[in-house]
């Protein structure tokens, strides 16, 4: 199969869906002629024109709230925040408007939109440009939370997200943009909310999503060298969360490590750990382990950042300890 980057996969998904459905529009800062500050929307402005690809003002509340209004009235916007951290600049619009409007109004309208959120630490972005806030959406039901880890998933999940009549928050890790992988041509769809075993194993389950999947896979390689079979379960997001898949894996391995890039406190790892402690406690042969960033604002100094963010070594050590 051909190999393309995660970024190309996302671009392709948007292009195909915009081709397929003229109600799909794209809006965000610099998504037009420039093709986005990370280049993700390259070529779309030339291809679909200024009425389908809109450079917005620096107005995050308008980007999200405006997309909600457009989604309710016949369009299917893909709105982009330049950094996922800017979700805080449009939090009410995201949590209370995008996610809740349909329910609050008795289901009279749908809000078919995708909010694209480039996330994660990249070496020097600092406390306000490095976040992975996917779990912040958990207490605000109504939107799906999708976090792809590979180019194929990115394409297939984004296409599903664009076609969904539910709003979808789509988190793309900036450090994955340049990573390559096989991606089927054409109408490749991945269902939202189905976990994927990225590597089967029998000794430890590592649950991860987004960029942390690749750390988990690297650590699993190292563990394999020591003769341990690590199962890497990619949740592909947090809502819907594929709890049966997680429990099935823990049933097999008896040991659970959850890895997230967000600070350890208050993230998706906590939620998954809690669910397993409730629903699968007797499956566990060892305490659950969580790995996350240090509970500090991410420093701008890239060297300090490295101390703050989970590494393959961290994952490897935790796996060893779980097996000890």
């Amino acid at each position, binding site marked *: 199969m051909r190999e393309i980057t995660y970024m190309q996969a996302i671009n392709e998904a948007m292009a195909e869906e915009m081709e397929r459905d003229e109600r799909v529009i794209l809006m965000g800062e610099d998504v037009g002629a420039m093709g986005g500050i990370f280049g993700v929307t390259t070529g779309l402005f030339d291809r679909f024109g200024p009425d389908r690809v809109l450079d*917005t003002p620096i*107005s995050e509340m308008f980007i999200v*709230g*405006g997309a*909600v209004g457009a*989604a309710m009235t016949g369009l299917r916007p893909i709105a982009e925040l330049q950094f996922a951290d800017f979700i805080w600049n449009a939090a009410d619009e995201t949590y209370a408007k995008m996610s809740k409007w349909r329910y609050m109004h008795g*289901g*009279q309208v749908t809000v078919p939109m995708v909010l694209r959120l480039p996330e994660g630490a990249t070496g020097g972005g600092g406390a306000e440009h490095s976040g992975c806030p996917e779990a912040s959406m958990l207490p605000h039901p109504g939107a799906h939370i999708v976090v792809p880890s590979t180019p194929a998933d990115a394409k297939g999940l984004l296409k599903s997200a664009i076609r969904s009549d539910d709003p979808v928050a789509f988190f793309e890790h900036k450090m994955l943009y340049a990573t390559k992988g096989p991606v089927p041509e054409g109408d490749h769809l991945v269902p939202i909310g189905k976990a994927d075993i990225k590597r089967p194993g029998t000794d430890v389950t590592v649950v991860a999503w987004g960029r942390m999947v690749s750390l988990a896979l690297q650590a699993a390689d190292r563990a394999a060298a020591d003769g341990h079979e690590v199962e890497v379960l990619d949740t592909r997001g947090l809502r819907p969360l594929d709890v049966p898949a997680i429990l099935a894996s823990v049933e097999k391995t008896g040991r659970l490590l959850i890895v997230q890039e967000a600070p350890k406190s208050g993230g998706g790892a906590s939620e998954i750990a809690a669910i397993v402690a409730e629903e699968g406690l007797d499956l566990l042969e060892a305490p659950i382990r969580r790995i996350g960033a240090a509970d500090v604002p991410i420093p701008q100094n890239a060297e300090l950042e490295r101390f703050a963010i989970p590494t393959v070594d961290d994952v490897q050590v935790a796996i060893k300890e779980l097996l000890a």
Partner: protein
Amino acid sequence: MALTTDTKKDIYRTMFLAQAWEQALLRLMDENLAPASYHPGRGSEGTEVAATAALRPDDYLLYDHRGMAHIIAKGVSLVELFGDFLGNDLGTTGGLGAGIVHVCKPELGVLGQSGTLGGSQLIAAGAALSSKLRHTEQVTMCFFGDGAANRGTFHEAANAAGAWKLPLVFVVQNNGWAVSVPTSYSTGGTFHDRAIGYGMTGYEVDGQDPFAVYEVAEEAVERARSGGGPSLIEAHTVRLTGHYASDPDGYRSAEVRAAYAEKDPIVKARLMLLEQGLATEDELRGMEQTALDEVQTARDKALTGTKPGAERLHQRVYV
């Protein structure tokens, strides 16, 4: 649509109807049949009805939390409105509401309410962008108070509307107060002046004079529809009651409240119709009685609705 005698009468009739409906709602609250949380609209019917009257049925309305006159003017049935407040299946949201309700009727362009003030300004800008991109010539009208006008959401919505000449009409109902805080204390400059900074037309109008409101609203709506871009109408209104139904209103002096009581737009409109010889006393009485009967019938009907059970909780949260 020009401001004909029929339009004037229709505006008056709708104002009266909205007020009669509100009285009936307050009675339901007294009778403990509806929850007692509501922001009465007494005093702002002039703006709400007359501005909404300038819209087409397929135009979009983002109403505000004060009163229901704009929603009634847009055509939502009184039974549905009662149903929303009673929280039963006859309401537009099928019983999810009750309290400070969210009314939603997409067929009539009634898109719903943001419980956080200002949220609707952004949604209105999005709806206006949508109709512009879809070339439907629909206009979006967005109501909010002087208080909500100071949220940053307004700036972002107004700037986008100004930059892209969106078919959007903002109606600022300036009643001089946001709960207990006087507008003069909380606000720098004036709302109609703010329009200029976004390249919009700004209007200042006496909200007690619904016919004057209609004329500026019509101009603004037509400008929007014909591609001329957004406008902002600052209408001076009054809040004849406390902020919410049981607010003792102690922060406003007796004199202040008395001065407001002189400014009832319904009284004023009625007087204008009579003085200008557009309607007779008998005709108006008949109109009023019909409205009261309509309200009574709607109330009776609405009370026959069924309240949802626990199963409703998880419905319509995901498609």
